[in-house]
């Protein structure tokens, strides 16, 4: 399964959910869906904006783990 390590990266960058949501241009509710592993898919544009806001690579946010 694909695990979203967004909260880890956010903690590293010391950025709040509200701040990140504002920078990426998504709602806090959607950011919460992403953080809680509830998302079914992530658009490349959203991933691009998150990586830009957190100054990281997609691999820092997404991780593959065996079920």
């Amino acid at each position, binding site marked *: 399964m694909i695990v979203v390590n967004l909260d880890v990266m956010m903690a590293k960058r010391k950025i709040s959910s509200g701040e990140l949501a504002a920078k990426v241009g998504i709602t806090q509710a959607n950011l919460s*869906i*992403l953080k809680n592993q*509830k*998302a*079914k*898919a*992530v*658009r490349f544009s*959203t991933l691009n904006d998150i990586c830009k806001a957190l100054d990281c690579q997609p691999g820092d946010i997404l991780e593959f783990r065996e079920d």
Partner: protein
Amino acid sequence: MRYNDGIIRWAKIATVMFIAMVVVADIFGIIITRYIAYCWAEVFDMLRVVILTVVFYIGTVGGYFILISLFKLLSNMSKDVVFDRKNTKLMAVITGALVGIAVDCVIGGFIWNGSWILAILALFMGLIVLSVKVVFDKAITMKEEMDLTI
């Protein structure tokens, strides 16, 4: 959306009228089944007439399930609740009731041949409703995935 609202309103009125027709059929059920038995099926022994009456009343129970589910379905549509699991459950109830009516009509077919045609029609309608249900299920799954795409 106004055009669709009109269709839904008329469909609801038609459904209520059909419910009223089934109620009337229930009230005069014994007369109707006797007419079918004596005039159409040309059956005169009491046992078979009673079986035909029971088959008729079981069929009308199925009719109530279908019509009430249809009314709820149309009410959901008028409230803009379209791609919802509630609607697919109602469609499943309609399909089940239609299959039940088909089985009921097959039993009736042994007494009156016209009942076979009703059984085939009920099964055919059940197949159509089942197909629509599958389409709705797919659409709901796609909608859920879309809603959870960030």
